[in-house]
């Protein structure tokens, strides 16, 4: 069984890096993203897939990533590569797999079967490798709910903007209006299924202002984090997702009050004129977790 802690860990920033580039995979944990996504798909040329898998395997085996989550983006299911990608990733001891171009619950099942076989083959605990799905087409987005619910291994879904925009025949110059429905549907589906939801990459590396705006937008929509392509973007995402001092203090007081009242046998009570009960605990806990990850909370909770 996968622990909820592993599934629900903080994933504000998920940084892609080519599994083929030693200088990137060597020590990218230094930039302290929440997750690293080693890419075997688009970042690796067709005739270099094998050498990239080789690098990936040895990196995961030998390098201490200091607690940063290690995911692998495998090649799409209509390629000859994805099965070997899964075997190498599972054998190396990766935390999870990102399914590229996932269109349906069936795609998740297909990957899940291969992952389970690899876990058995390489002696890893059955069910230990997590899954997430990248939704890259209109059909995938419309199937977001069934994909999110397809497996207990699933921890989240991510929008992949490049391919999605290509399908929608839009350019991305409309300030994100072309993806508004997709984003809304996805975050709604993810919440309904109890998994996380991640936004697409922002490819204009010099436009850090635009990147921050987009990150604020998706944070307010309810996304858990964002895929990123450059370490310069990490701090910005973490800043946007960091709770304010007031929010932290409020969350701290809520958590303490709920606990203290629970010990006294009180389920519902008032604080500063607002009704509070156990339903507020989860939000307060998430705020404290974010505050800790942002280095803003040094208290005892």
């Amino acid at each position, binding site marked *: 069984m996968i622990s909820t802690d592993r599934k629900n860990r903080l994933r504000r920033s998920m940084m892609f890096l080519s599994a083929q580039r030693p200088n990137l995979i060597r020590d990218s944990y230094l930039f302290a993203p929440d997750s690293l996504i080693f890419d075997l798909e688009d970042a690796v040329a067709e005739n270099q897939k094998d050498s990239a898998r080789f690098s990936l395997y040895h990196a995961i085996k030998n390098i201490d990533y200091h607690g940063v989550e290690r995911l692998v983006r495998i090649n799409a299911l209509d390629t000859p590569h994805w099965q070997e990608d899964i075997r190498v990733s599972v054998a190396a001891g990766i935390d999870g797999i990102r399914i590229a171009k996932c269109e349906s619950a069936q795609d998740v099942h297909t990957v899940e079967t291969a992952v389970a076989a690899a876990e058995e083959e390489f002696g890893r605990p059955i069910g230990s490798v997590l899954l997430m799905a990248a939704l890259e087409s209109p059909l995938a987005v419309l199937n977001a709910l069934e994909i999110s619910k397809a497996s207990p291994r699933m921890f989240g879904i991510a929008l992949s903007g490049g391919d999605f925009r290509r399908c929608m025949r839009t350019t991305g110059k409309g300030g994100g209006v072309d993806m508004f429905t997709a984003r809304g549907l996805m975050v709604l589906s993810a919440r309904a299924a109890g998994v996380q939801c991640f936004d697409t990459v922002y490819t204009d590396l010099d436009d850090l202002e635009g990147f921050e705006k987009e990150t604020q937008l998706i944070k307010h929509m309810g996304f858990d984090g964002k895929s990123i392509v450059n*370490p*310069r973007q990490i701090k910005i995402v973490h800043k946007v997702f960091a709770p304010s001092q007031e929010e932290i203090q409020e969350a701290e007081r809520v958590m303490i009050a709920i606990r203290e009242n629970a010990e006294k046998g009180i389920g519902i009570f008032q604080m500063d004129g607002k009704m509070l009960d156990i339903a507020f605990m989860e939000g307060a806990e998430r705020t404290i977790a974010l505050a800790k990850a942002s280095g803003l909370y040094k208290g005892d909770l």
Partner: protein
Amino acid sequence: MKNSVGREIPRELIEQGWQPYQGKDAYNGTEFQKVGPKIKVADQGSEEKVLNSIEEAIRACGLKDGMTLSFHHHFRDGDYIVETVMREIVRLGFRDMKLACSSIGSAAPIVADCIETGVVTGLTTSGIRDRIGEAVSHGKLKDIAILRTHGGRIRAIEQGKIHIDVAFVGAPSCDAYGNASGKGGKSNCGSLSYAEIDVMYADQVVVITDTLVPFPNKPSHIEGIYVDYVVEVNEIGNPKKIASAAARMTTNPKDLMIAEDCVRVMRALPYFVDGFSFQTGVGGPSIATTIFLREHLKELGIKIGWIVGGVSTHMVNLMKEGLVGCIADVQDFDLGAIESLGTDPRHFDISVSEYANPFNKGAFINKLDFVILSALEIDTDFNVNVLTGSDGVLRGAAGGHPDTAACAKCCIIVTPLVRGRIPTVCDRVVTVTTAGDSIDVLVTDHGIAVNPLRQDLIKHLNAAGIEHVDIHTLRDKAYSIVGQPDDIQFEDRVVAIVEARDGTVMDVVRQVKPFSISED
């Protein structure tokens, strides 16, 4: 005999009168008699000093075999002066010449040929690279080369350790009477600080320019009173290589991370108060540090009192924003800096003696708060190498590194922990150019280490909550990533002396052995 950084000084050098390095403050209170040049009084009836060619100037100077010629490096990789003069020296059949350069690089490959053929047999410089570095490291130079710091070079000139027979000074503009400037021509370089002391101590001075302007060419960086001859040539250099449009801000995320940490360290120290002084270079993390300082200065409502040393557009921009009081310039790295020098009264040039000479009555850097420097290697005693590469071959420049490190209240080294497969933090640097007693803080992409000699700094970093580790931890980390390299193999022969700024021996560089794979 070992010096205070644990380097063995060969007996033959001690017998020749060389002293071992004894620490950065060992020379305090030294007294000495300055030397003076031999002056040929100007012909009162002649209003011009212009000759038709470099050959004419060489003949007019009465150049002889064995004489010492000096050159400055303000034109960097765009320099045509060294190449042009040396071609004439070769053509006219001179032998056994000694070169005294402020630095020499890839712009004059002819010097490597001259070393091979015995036209050049002696060399003192601060920087040495490419074919010239290889020629010296492979034992082709007849004498032992002496590598000096910028400040140490001026000290050596004033002590008479370097006697310049003829100084050849490339100048972007000059009048017919020898008033020369780093501006006002076709290939401007800004300040001419590295030449200013040379012309005062050289017996004869030849200015070479491609832009002859009407008398008087004022303000001038080189005064005509020191100049014997002026020669006009077609081109003094390649302007594109002399100065870039603007020194580029790095986008390398590790450099940026290092720079951010460097600024965090600076801010945690008591020197980071209104009016502090600052110096850095133009490497990736250095420029980023300059840029990141802006937001911290604004947030605290303070400004930098003065900047000294090499200047880039980024520093000039800070000054224009009112975040820097003034800039004392010895070298300009890009067009923005060149344009600003002398145009804005807050941006002025100083001579290299005023900048960094340890043996005068007080240089600018004696008052410096922060200097941010790089390193090719740094060992667990904080000794730094900026001269020899991982193959033991000379390919760097001491420059002002040892001078500023020794003087600044806080010297911070910024460097990645490993470069390719080469560890930067190591057990023992190949060559000590800057002694560990001058280095205070090391900032790498894998963490920060503070020299245990600076317990005061450690207290401040702890108080600010800035994590730091023992430098041995960083060394272990570096070795765990790329492995520990075997020691480089050298022959016994000393090919270069690394002179400390006070004239003592910091280290020696030996001839490299041809590479071979070891048996085990």
